[in-house]
C-alpha cells in the first residue's frame, strides 16, 4: 500500500511514547522529536549538566569498503585520510573542483579497509563518480544503522555502567567497539554539542535494547531524552554549523555567491593542503589560502544592554525566542551591510544572545563592533554586537 508518511527511526516506539508536546521535526525524510517537553529548558540543561540522549538515526551513513577505500576518501575529503589509524574519527568537509563545500560529516576508520562516512545529504552519486576505476564498494546504511548521540558531563559515568568494556580510555575523536545489553555497538567520542559526549552506533534491530539499557543506567545521573531543538541551541554555543542553514551545498546553490569554501566557514584546520597527491578542490583551496578569504564565519555576541535600550524605547523588555532562530539577519557596520547571521540563539548558559555570522573582510576580525538586526515590536532595529572567537562555550572536560 502506498504510504506517504515520513519514515520513523528505530527508536520511534520509545521516543513517541515520551514526546509530550507532539513536537516532531522532519530530518532527511524521517520524523524525529523536536522537543520531549513543552519547554526546552530541561532538555538543554541535560546537555550541559547531566546526560542527554538524542536520536540521530536520520544521519545519512555510508560504509566504504575495499582496497581503495582510504584512497577514495583521501581524494574526496580535505583530510589526510591515509594518516588515520583504525579507531580514529575525523570531522571533514568535501568540496567540488572550485573548492566550495558540498557537505560535511565524520569519517570513521572502522577497520584498515572499512570506513563509515556520515553526511547531511545524499552523496552516493558524488562518491561513486569519484570512485571510478577504484577497488571499493560504497553502501548506504542509513536505515540499517541506528545512532544515538549521548551528550553531557555525566555520559561517561553512565556508559561505564552499561558497556562491556569501560570507555574511560576512549579519547576525543576516537571510537571503540563495545557491547551494551548484549548488543554490538561502536562508540565514538564525538557529538554536535561541544560538551563531553559520545555517539553510539548499532544495528537497527538492537536499537530499543540499547535505549532501554542507557535509560535505566542513567536514571541516577539525570539522563534525559533530548530533541533536536535543544541540540540546535547547544551546537550554536559550540560554534558548529549546519548544512542548508548556515551554508548552502554547491549542489543546491543557484548562484555563485551562495557557495562557501571550508576556509570561509572556519574549517582551516580540516584542510590538509600538505597531504600528498590530488584531492577534489585542491588547486582552488591552495589559491584561496594564498590570497585570503573574502568571507569568514564568526561568532557574534549581541550586547544585551544595547538590546534593552532598543526594546525599552517601546516600553518592552527584550524579547527573543527561547530557541535557535534559523533566519538570515543582516549585520551592519555604519549604514553598510557587511554580512549576515545565519543562526542565532539565546544561550541559557552564557545569558547572552549569540549568533553564527558570515562577515566580509575585514570585519570578521575578533573584537570588531558591528550591529545585528533584531525586530522590536514589528520594526527592524540593529542591536550592537561584537565579533568573538568561536566556540562561544568550551568546557574543559570536552576533550579530557
Amino acid at each position, binding site marked *: 500500500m502506498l504510504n506517504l508518511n515520513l519514515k520513523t527511526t528505530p527508536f520511534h516506539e520509545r521516543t513517541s511514547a515520551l514526546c509530550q508536546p507532539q513536537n516532531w521535526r522532519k530530518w532527511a525524510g524521517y520524523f524525529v522529536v523536536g522537543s520531549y517537553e513543552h519547554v526546552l529548558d530541561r532538555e538543554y540543561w541535560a546537555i550541559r*549538566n547531566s546526560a542527554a540522549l538524542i536520536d540521530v538515526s536520520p544521519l545519512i551513513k555510508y560504509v566504504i569498503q575495499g582496497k581503495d577505500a582510504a584512497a577514495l576518501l583521501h581524494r574526496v575529503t580535505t583530510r589526510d585520510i591515509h594518516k588515520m589509524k583504525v579507531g580514529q574519527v575525523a570531522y571533514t568537509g568535501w568540496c567540488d573542483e572550485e573548492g566550495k563545500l558540498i557537505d560535511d560529516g565524520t569519517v570513521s576508520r572502522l577497520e584498515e579497509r572499512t570506513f563509515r562516512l556520515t553526511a547531511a545529504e545524499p552523496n552516493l552519486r558524488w562518491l561513486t563518480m569519484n570512485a571510478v576505476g577504484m577497488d571499493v564498494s560504497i553502501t548506504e546504511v542509513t536505515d540499517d544503522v541506528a545512532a544515538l548521540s549521548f551528550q553531557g558531563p555525566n555520559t561517561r559515568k553512565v556508559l561505564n555502567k552499561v558497556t562491556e568494556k569501560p570507555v574511560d580510555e576512549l579519547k576525543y575523536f576516537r571510537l571503540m567497539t563495545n557491547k551494551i545489553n548484549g548488543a554490538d555497538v561502536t562508540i565514538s567520542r564525538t557529538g554536535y554539542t561541544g560538551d563531553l559526549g559520545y555517539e553510539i552506533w548499532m544495528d537497527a534491530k538492537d536499537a530499543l535494547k540499547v535505549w532501554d539499557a542507557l535509560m535505566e543506567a542513567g536514571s541516577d545521573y539525570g539522563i534525559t531524552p533530548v530533541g533536536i531543538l535543544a541540540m540546535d541551541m547547544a551546537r550554536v554555543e559550540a560554534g558548529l554549523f549546519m548544512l542548508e542553514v548556515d551554508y548552502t551545498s554547491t549542489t543546491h546553490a543557484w548562484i555563485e555567491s551562495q557557495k562557501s569554501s571550508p576556509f570561509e566557514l572556519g574549517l582551516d584546520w580540516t584542510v590538509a593542503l600538505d597531504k600528498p597527491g590530488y584531492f577534489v578542490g585542491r588547486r582552488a583551496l591552495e589559491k584561496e589560502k594564498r590570497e585570503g578569504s573574502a568571507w569568514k564565519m564568526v561568532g557574534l555576541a549581541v550586547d544585551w*544592554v544595547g538590546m534593552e535600550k532598543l526594546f525599552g524605547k517601546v516600553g518592552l523588555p527584550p524579547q527573543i525566542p527561547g530557541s535557535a532562530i534559523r533566519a538570515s539577519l543582516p549585520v551592519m557596520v555604519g549604514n553598510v551591510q557587511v554580512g549576515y547571521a545565519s543562526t542565532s540563539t539565546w544561550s541559557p548558559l552564557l545569558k547572552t544572545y549569540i549568533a553564527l555570522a558570515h562577515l566580509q573582510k575585514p570585519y570578521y576580525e575578533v573584537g570588531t563592533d558591528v550591529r545585528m538586526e533584531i525586530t522590536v515590536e514589528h520594526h527592524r532595529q540593529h542591536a550592537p554586537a561584537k565579533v568573538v572567537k568561536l566556540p562561544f562555550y568550551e568546557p574543559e572536560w570536552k576533550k579530557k
Partner: protein
Amino acid sequence: MTSSNTYDAIIIGGGHNGLVAGAYLARAGKKVVVLERRHIAGGAAVTEEIFPGYKFTEFSYVVSLLRPEIIRDLELPKHGLKILPLPSTFTPMENGDYLASWDDHDLTRRELYRHSPKDAEAYDEYARVMARAAKAIKPIINLIPPDPSSMSIRDLMGLLKVGQYAAGLSEKELYMVAKLATQSSADLLEEWFETDALKGTKAASGIIGTFLGPRSPGTAYVLLHHYMGEIDGAFRAWGFAKNGSGGVSGAIYNATQALGVEVRVNASVQQVKVKGGRAVGVILENGDELDSKVVMSAADPKRTFLQFVEQKHLPDDFVTSIQNFRTRGSSGKVNIALSKLPNFTALPYTGNGANSVLHRGAVSISPSIDYIERAYDDAKYGQISKRPYIDMIFPSMIDPDMAPPGHHVMSCFVQYAPYDLEGGWTDGRRDELGEAVIATIEQYAPNIRECIVGMQVISPKDIERIAGITGGNIFHGELLLHQIFFLRPTPQWADFRTPLKGYYFGASGAHPGGGVMGAPGMLAAKEILKDGF
C-alpha cells in the same frame, strides 16, 4: 606597615555581594582585598558536605534574581556558573489532592481548571496585571536610590526619573501599585482567587524573610517583588545553581581570582580604622592592620555600623535608625540526606522515583492562607510554628552531582522559626524545629522518616552564629515597605555611601535587598568608582 597590607579597597565580608563588589573594583584596575571571617568564602551562599557524599546549600537555596549583567560582566559561566531550571511547584493538599504549577502556561491553566474554572481564568489576568505593575516599577530597582529630601542635582535627577516611571503608568496600574504597597497578600489574593492551595502558595512568597503573616499589610508588595524576576521570561536567572548557592559564590570567587582580587579567609575584622573623619583601613581580630583608600562592608547593617565603627564617628540619628532597622530572623532551614525519595500520597512515584516530575520542582507546604497565618500566630508569641510553611526542593533531582548515585538531598526552607524564641534556642529547641518539619511532611509523604540518613537543622541563631548575619534574617533586614528603596538601610543613606567618608555599604541590607542577587555589591562598587579614589 608593609606595602603588602596596603590596598585601594578593603571589602569586609566574603559573601556573594562582597565578592561581586571586589570583582567589579578589580576589573576597574583597583588593588582589592576581601576579608572573610569564616574558613570559606561565600557567606550565606555556600555549599558544604555536611554528611559525606551529600552536598547542601546550608542557608540559601534558590537563585532568584542574580543579575544577568553580573553573569556577563564577570564571565561567570566560564568560571563554572550554571543555573538549572526548577520547572514546577507542587502543593499537596489536606484532602489528599494536590495543586501543581508547571513551566508551561497551558498545563498550569489546565491544572488550575481542575480546581476552579474561575481561578484558571483569573490567573491569566492576575499574572498580566502583576507583570505590568512589576514592569512599571522595575526600572526603579536599577536606579541608585535618590534621597527625596536632598536638593542635590543627582538626587533631583533621580527623583525625576522615578516620577517619570510613575507618570508612565496607566491609572489602573497606578491603583494596582498603590494597592500592592499597602495591602496584605491575603487581601490581594482573596480578591482574585477561591482555591485555598493556590492562595496559600502565592501568599507564602509574600512572607518569606519577613516577620509577618499573610494577613499583615505590606506583604502584597513582596509578591510583586517576585514578579520582577519573571519579567524577562526565559532570560531570567531563576532556578537552582549547579552545586547549590555555593556554585554561585564559587563562580564569583573564581572570577575574583582571575581578576587578581586577594581573598583572605579566617580574617575577622575587629574595627574600621578612622583618621581625620575618613575610613582608612581595618584592624583584624588577630591584630593585623590593613590600610586602604576606601572600605566597603558587605556585612549586615548592624555589624557594619554598630560593631565595625566606633559610634563617635557616626551621627546619633543615623545610629538610632540602624538600631531600629528590623532584622528579625523568622525562618530556619532543615537539610536532609535521603537514601530514597519521600513518596507523596497525592502523586506517588513508581520505581526509584527518578522520573518523578514533582521532585524536580519545588514542593510547597502551604495548603491555605489560614494554615500560614496560624503558623505565624505561633511565632508572634515566640514559638516555633507547630505546622510551619515549608518550601522544599530536592537539589539532587536537578543536579545529580549533589548526592551519591541513587541517593538524594532535600532542602527545606521553614518559616516560622523566630529568632527571639521564648526561652531561647537550645539544642532541644532546634530538634523541636526539625521534628515539626518532619511531622508536617509526614502528613503528605508518610515514608519520609525511613528515607532519612542524616539531618541538619539550622535556626536563625545558627544563621547568625555561622554566617554572621545579625538576627539571622536571610535578607539582612526584612523586606518591609519602610525598609526598601530610599529607606534601605536608612533614609538619606541608601546610595551605598555612609556618614563616614570612605566607608561604603554594599550588602543585602542595602538597596535593592536580599536574595542571591549580587545587585547591592555591584551597585556599591559602581558608586565607589564614581566617587573616584
